[in-house]
Structure formats: structure tokens, C-alpha cells
């Protein structure tokens, strides 16, 4: 597992029904591209987050494929329409098979 990985997200606590809210997510990750070499000239193996998803009450909001050109500590900001109270679930998939998850509740009304 990559070191120092820490997901963080910001979701408003409350929203009106059908309101479009802004969600911000950031995960600290080195995002080693696999293109760099160490001091001895050996290639440093690729180690990135390759996929990010957000689901709301089981329904997919966003599903992102991430490539090696994405920089360290990937930050995503996107909007979602909230029809009802529920929970946003965020998932990041690491090259090494690790899955990092976090979730945030939101209350409508």
C-alpha cells in the first residue's frame, strides 16, 4: 500500500430537494508516473490511483479513469443533483489493489 494516502472530501451537510451541490475531493497520493528514474537509472515503478468513483445511495454520480499524467494529490471538483437525503460514497482504486473509501451524509429539507 502506498504511503501517506489520505482521502478527504467536502460535501454540504444540507441541501434543498433537487438542488445542485458542489463536491470537492482530494486524495494525498504520490502518483508515481512510471516514467521517472531513480539515482541509479532504474525506472521507478508506476504507482497511481487509476480510478475514482462517487455514488449516491447506490447510484453512480461520477466514474473517472485516471492516467499517469495526473499530478500528485489528485483533486476533483464536480456537481451533483440531490433528490433526497442520503449518503455520498467515494472510492479511489490504487494500482497496487488498495481501495480507499470514505462517505459523507447529506440531509435534504
Amino acid at each position, binding site marked *: 500500500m502506498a504511503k501517506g494516502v*489520505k482521502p*478527504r472530501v*467536502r460535501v454540504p451537510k444540507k441541501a434543498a430537494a433537487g438542488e445542485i451541490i458542489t463536491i*470537492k475531493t*482530494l486524495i*494525498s497520493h504520490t502518483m508515481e508516473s512510471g516514467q521517472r528514474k531513480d539515482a541509479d537509472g532504474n525506472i521507478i515503478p508506476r504507482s497511481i490511483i487509476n480510478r475514482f468513483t462517487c455514488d449516491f445511495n447506490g447510484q453512480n454520480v461520477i466514474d473517472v479513469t485516471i492516467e499517469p499524467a495526473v*499530478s*500528485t*494529490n489528485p483533486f476533483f471538483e464536480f456537481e451533483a443533483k440531490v433528490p433526497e437525503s442520503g449518503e455520498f460514497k467515494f472510492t479511489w482504486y490504487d494500482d497496487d489493489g488498495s481501495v480507499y473509501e470514505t462517505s459523507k451524509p447529506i440531509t435534504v429539507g
Partner: protein
Amino acid sequence: MRVSIAILAMALGATGAYSGEDASLTLEDGQSLTIRTDAPPHTENLSEITSGWVYRSDETQALQLDDFDNPAFVFVDQGIDLYAAVDGSEGKACASCHENVEDFAGLRASMPKVVDGELVTMENLVNNCRTERMGAEPWKWSGGQMTAMTALIGLQSRGMPVNVAIDGDAAPFWEAGKELYYTRVGQLDMACSNCHEDNYGNMIRADHLSQGQINGFPTYRLKNAKLNSSHGRFKGCMSNIRATPFAEGGDEFKALELYLASRGNGLSVETPSVRN
């Protein structure tokens, strides 16, 4: 001549480097920071002191307004982990003695200061605790662990006015710092004052010169995507004028840090700020 000045003013305005004449900025959580105020009396050649935030582009300024957007907070979080991490032969963490990091509120605003005849900076305090009380190895002055810790401790004082003492025991160190500030060095034969006092607001290559205030250090720089110590920044400036930099943590830079901090007396602590 008047026409050309007007055009220049418009060109400067168009870059968005000066966001009006507001004396303060407001963070997303409602906290207000002083970015413009009257210069302290010992800063003879300036009438107004301004935070480096003022000279940055709109996008860079916006990054600092929201702690979620501010990339420095990734490192502050690392600092929180380090604060609780046991290290060294005594089996202690920072938190073993200093239970709440919030208790350091106000410390950053008064640093560096003189203790028992010696000028000490935040880095000195941290490393002193590590070697004397924890039995741990000292951290590198501008290393990732040190800047994460000084950012975490500095953050507790955010919003408080910088107020370093320059009289009494501190006077000789302050004088030494002032001497350095106005001494021309390097192949380009420039002093700190030539850029940061005589030409702040003007362009240096593709960028605006600031007053060189250090109220926001350690600061996240977009150019290297990490936290930078003030001494690291001094080194960068000295290299730019083709001078041989003093050592980080040395007497010269500590004196300069005291002098520069005193020039910002009255500005808010902005730690951790976002700059180019």
C-alpha cells in the same frame, strides 16, 4: 508621459495582481486576515506594508481563501500525524508534553525571539524538543517533516498580528538583520531592499515583486508543490542574485528572519499561505 503611465496602470490592473485596496481578506470559514496596514515605525522607508498575497494572480489568491483548496493543508495533516507520532529514545511524541496543539496559538506571531541571549526560531524550538526531551534525531531545517510541523504550529496563530520584539535582548540581532537587508551581495550586487523595498509591485521577469513579507511562512509554492521555509526562500533569493547563500538555520538567516518579521509587524499571520 502621462498617457504612458495610464496605459501602464491599465496593464497592471488587467493582470489582476492587485485586488482592490481592501485592507483584509476573508477566508471561507469567515476568518479575516489583515493584508494591508500602516508600516511599523522602525520600517522607515515604507509607509504601508502589504502581504505577498496581494501581488499574486486571482487564481493563486483564491487557493488560499479556502482551506480545502489550499494545497498546504495536505502537509498540515501530515504535521498532525507527526505531532502524535512517538519518536526517539524517550518514547515520547510532541503530544506527550504539549497535549493540545491549539495551545501554541500566538507563538508564531512572536517568532523569532531571544531566549537566554540566543535568537531562536520555530525550527530551533522543534528540534530542541526533539533532541533534548524526546531523544530523537533533529529534523532538517527545510525538510518535509519540519515544514509540516512549523505549518501546523503556525496555523494556530493564523489571523493574529505579527508582533516580534526588536528591543532589549533582540536589538543586536535585529541590527545585524537590518545590516544584511541593506547590504549588496553577489555578482548582481543587489541587496534585499533593491527588489523588495524599492521595486515591490513592479515586474521581475514574468512576476510581480512583493515586499518580501514572511508572515505566511512556511508557504506552499506552486513552483515546487511543497511547503517552503523562510530560510529556503532566502537561499533562493540569494542564488538569484548570484550570491553564495548563507546556511539555513545559521546566524545570518536567523537575524534576517527577525528583521523581516519585524517589517511585517501588524500584518496577520497567514501560515500556511499559497504563493508562486
